[in-house]
């Protein structure tokens, strides 16, 4: 009987345990990837640079969700709301207060952190599907809130705001797109290092303890309420930064760019990249940026169906996402070395 009960208890863990070492890439691999990210833009067209910028931006947003879900085991469909807040904070500060774009990013991180932290408070009592519904409500409410009349002076209402694209500073000889790419890359690398270190720290271990077993974590002295809200705050803060960068890169913010569809895409990105594996966030971001376009080019009328089929293929082949591929690759390399 007790065995059966234990099975039931296990069934309720939404997110499987990922050991913290398995959450990141090795130093060597990271450096190779970074080098590629630094060099490639010099040899490609502006449009591809723009797409790479978007890849990094969505990667950050997926990373933020990964910290929340893969790290602390809380599920959120409301990431699009935090993304929207970040985008609007930057756009409003740049266009109404003439603040430099780079300075708006820490501000929007702080605003979104506070917003996420406060949202996490009432959400503490909810878990699983109930939390999903609460965050979902946030995501559906956000575009409507941005359209409210008394905010229209600041947000531009339904029309949204146009954001000026920054030039490269210090007279550097590069195009606006290229500068924006390198700027995004710097921010992304900084946040990635921050996230990796966060998950290795005391707080990160607390997140994972909560994810694996909340009751056990609290009985070992982890302040569950504090760390759960903190995870929400950090995740919202990073998503806000992604939103800011997104607003600057796209040069436009409007309420209807930040609907629930965005939140669902980010969620798919996380699953495809591998829940709880930070580098996978960028693989997932590539999936949600390029696969819909690919589906469109295969068949215009059936693009949704093609996308669905491709998504099914991915989750059949690698139910654990890109992380599974990475683990397989690692094992293969290990075998080759032994030989």
């Amino acid at each position, binding site marked *: *009987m007790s*065995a*059966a*009960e*234990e*099975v*039931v*208890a296990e*069934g*309720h863990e*939404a*997110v*499987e345990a990922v050991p913290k070492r398995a959450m990141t890439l090795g130093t060597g691999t990271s450096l190779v990837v970074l080098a590629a990210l630094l060099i490639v833009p010099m040899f490609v067209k502006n449009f591809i640079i723009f797409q790479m910028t978007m890849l990094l931006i969505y990667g950050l947003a997926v990373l933020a969700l990964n910290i929340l*879900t893969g790290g602390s085991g809380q*599920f959120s469909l409301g990431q699009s709301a935090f993304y929207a807040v970040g985008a609007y904070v930057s756009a409003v500060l740049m266009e109404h207060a003439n603040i430099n774009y780079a300075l708006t990013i820490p501000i929007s991180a702080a605003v979104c952190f506070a917003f996420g932290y406060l949202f996490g408070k*009432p959400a503490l*009592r*909810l*878990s699983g*599907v*109930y939390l*999903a*519904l*609460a965050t*979902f*409500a946030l995501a*559906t*409410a956000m575009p*409507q*809130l941005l*359209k409210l*009349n008394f905010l229209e002076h600041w947000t531009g209402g339904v029309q949204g705001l146009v954001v000026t694209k920054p030039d490269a500073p210090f007279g550097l000889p590069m195009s606006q797109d290229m500068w924006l790419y390198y700027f995004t890359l710097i921010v992304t690398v900084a946040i990635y290092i921050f996230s990796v270190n966060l998950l290795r720290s005391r707080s990160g271990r607390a997140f994972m303890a909560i994810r694996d*077993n909340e*009751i*056990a974590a609290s*009985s070992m002295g982890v302040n569950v309420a504090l760390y759960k809200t903190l995870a929400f705050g950090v995740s919202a803060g990073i998503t806000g930064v992604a939103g800011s960068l997104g607003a600057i890169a796209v040069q436009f913010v409007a309420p209807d760019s930040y609907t629930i569809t965005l939140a*669902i895409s980010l*969620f*798919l990105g*996380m*699953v*495809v990249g591998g*829940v709880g594996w930070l580098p996978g966030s960028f693989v997932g971001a590539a999936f949600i940026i390029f696969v819909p376009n690919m589906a469109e080019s295969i068949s215009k*009328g*059936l*693009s*949704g*169906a*093609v*996308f*669905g*089929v491709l*998504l*099914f293929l991915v*989750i*059949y082949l690698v*139910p*654990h*996402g890109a992380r599974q591929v990475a683990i397989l690759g690692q094992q293969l390399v290990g075998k080759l070395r032994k030989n």
Partner: protein
Amino acid sequence: MELFTNQVLAGIATGAIYACMALAVVMIYQAIDHLNFAQGEMAMFSTFISWQLMQWGVSYWAAFLITLAFSFVAGIAIERILFKPLAKAPVLTNVAGFIALFAIINSSAGLIWDFTIKQYPTPFGSAPFLGSQLISTHQAGMIGVTVLLLLGLYFFFQYTRIGLAMRAAASVPESARLVGINTSWMIALGWGMATAIGSIAGMLIAPVVFLEPNMMGGVLIYGFAAAVLGGLSSPFGAVVGGFLVGIFENLAGTYIPGVGNELKLPIALALIISVLVVKPAGLFGRHIVKRV
């Protein structure tokens, strides 16, 4: 006061739609322990099948029954072909699978039947019900069917061997397997039943919201909200939740100033969340006791 009663009545009428959908959501949640995001699209596809049959000259009730049978079989087939291989995959991967299924069904229906809005017939007529302007006979019929469905399900789960087996398979799969229940097929059966109930919901809703590939978007959201509000473990709660959500939505639209059609949904959701904060397992849900 009259405005209030009228709005409550209108809320009950729309609530019947949500109740139907919530019932289907809870059914499948009972069987497989996940929320199926593609449920609304499955219902929409079934409704299109019945519409197509009627276009070919089949009578309403014959089309209704054929669609019911088709949906039941299709539900089982989807489970066997698409989701059984994912049974061991993480929960979130399954959710991604539902989203994929959503995209596939929505886009295929758009290709087969295109995106123009279509009229859908009702078997109950659309005259005012008992002289009230707010509830039509169709809506009254819809409430009637929902209640009948609920009673039928109650008897099925409470008094038949197979209903008992399904409940056992859903709540304690390991022990159910030990007493000889084929839990894997019980899950498939749950999918079949949920799809069939969804198709009933779709066919009842279609005369109100009109038939088109995106008809279920809004309804499913309210259906989920209703199911969660009532408690995901209770079909009765789902139906009550459906009516409550309908009433909430109407009253918020009437009494809170500045709430247009667009803010109705966020306000209804906010109210539901406030209820959940007080009662985290929903109004009628069982509390799940967790072992460490």
